[in-house]
């Protein structure tokens, strides 16, 4: 598999990104990097712009200003279509197909060499072997979101972007999925996971805290705890919001009523 020339170590490079959706400025001057071979957590309350940023990285979002470079190419270029796996927030699989039929279709579209083997592999990863012949419409919410995840792992993506993949899953499954993300990152793949559950921050190598369309803070989980003198990601987030108000800094939030994690 060929690798493209790019700034060493970063799979995604977002600069000065501004996105307007309807009457809201969903992102305003956002700079973000996603490292290869690591899990980057994109955390922020609901409505903070996580999905908008992820859609921009996938190249399906109309942007107003700024640049988004993915694996050395402008976001959305044809060269990236085999390189980026995308787990949408709401499961985007066909309810009227079985689990295996869904995965086989996406594998064929990707042009995976051995469709059967690859489908088996991702079924293993998400532990859905028993449901393979079940209609996706009849799966539980958690099972459906795992099919959605499996579809994004087909082929050999160099970047996997997951939009709130653990929402609504039970703790055991959540834990096992975070284990899966670590395994994927360990192969050198860049993993970007969004979440509005601040507790999940500890599972990430890098964090980007988003609030009201701006980056509130970034760094490793440990750095953020030290900087804010707190002992949980949730408290760190609240502290950062307060600091933003105190200093009125450029990255500070706008005076609205967004709470932290719901």
């Amino acid at each position, binding site marked *: 598999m060929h690798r493209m020339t790019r700034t060493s170590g970063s799979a995604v490079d977002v600069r000065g990104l501004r996105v307007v959706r309807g009457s809201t400025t969903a992102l305003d001057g956002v700079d973000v990097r996603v490292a290869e071979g690591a899990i980057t957590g994109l955390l922020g309350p609901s409505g903070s712009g996580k999905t908008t940023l992820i859609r921009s990285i996938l190249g*399906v*979002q*109309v942007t107003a200003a700024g640049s988004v470079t993915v694996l050395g190419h402008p976001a*959305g270029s044809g060269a990236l279509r085999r390189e980026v796996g*995308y787990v949408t927030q709401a499961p985007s699989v066909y309810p009227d197909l079985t689990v295996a*039929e869904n995965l086989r*279709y996406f594998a064929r579209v*990707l042009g995976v060499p051995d469709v059967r083997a690859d489908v088996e592999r991702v079924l293993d990863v998400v532990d859905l072997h028993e449901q393979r012949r079940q209609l996706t419409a009849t799966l539980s919410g958690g099972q459906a979101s795992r099919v959605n995840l499996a579809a994004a792992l087909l082929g050999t993506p160099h970047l996997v972007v997951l939009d709130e993949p653990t929402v609504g899953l039970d703790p055991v499954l959540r834990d096992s999925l975070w284990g899966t993300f670590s395994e994927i990152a360990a192969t050198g793949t860049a993993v970007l996971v969004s979440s509005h559950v601040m507790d999940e921050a500890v599972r990430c190598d890098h964090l980007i805290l988003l609030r009201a369309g701006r980056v509130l803070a970034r760094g490793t989980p440990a750095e953020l705890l030290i900087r804010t003198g707190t002992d949980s990601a949730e408290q760190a987030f609240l502290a950062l919001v307060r600091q933003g108000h105190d200093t009125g800094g450029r990255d500070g939030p706008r005076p609205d009523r967004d709470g932290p994690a719901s």
Partner: protein
Amino acid sequence: MIPTAARVLRQLRHDPRTIAMILVVPCVLLTLLWWIYDGGPIFTSIGPALLALFPMIIMFLITSIATLRERRSGTLERLLTLPLSKISFLGGYALAFGLMATVQALLASALMLGPLGLELEGPWALLVLIAVLDSILGVALGLFVSAFANTEFQAVQFMPAIVLPQVLLCGLLVPREDLPRFLEVVSNVLPLSYAVDAMNEVARSTDPDLTLPLIVLGVFIVGMLALGAATLRRRTP
């Protein structure tokens, strides 16, 4: 294109009721009309036109709903991030529903020519060919208009808005040359008129000349598919 067509057919296979409706409903309606007119001369004169009508209407409805679902459920967004060209996506739908339409046209034509005793001067294979082209026209129109519908309710309304006027003006009620001049001109630019003309030609002539209607149908199908592709935006606001 082939994987997408296979996937669409697989979805249909999990929905046997829809398959049954696609195949059985036109036959039932044709039989009903035969019964209404007691198999008389009126049935003979409108029979060929009906054979052009049903496939188009049914395929139009099914396609516009199916693609609307695809747009709204997020699967289209996922597909557009994958190495799938817009043409393969639309072509896949056209191919899958075109296949269904072929089976439907074969059944309906067999019924018309056999039990219902429709007299045909031209070759029956041409009748089937036109019925298939016609249903692909329905597919192409359905793909295109689904871009302008945000809800299933709107998509269903396109049927009376886009298809019914064509039915009224295609020569089924009044021969096209007897329409008021303005309506005749309008009917000259509607694709269904040409499908019905072609059907009538095959029914009445031993050596039918279908050059014009086939070209018009082909141009409409390709044009609608191209317009449909233009409405599939990778980037959305």
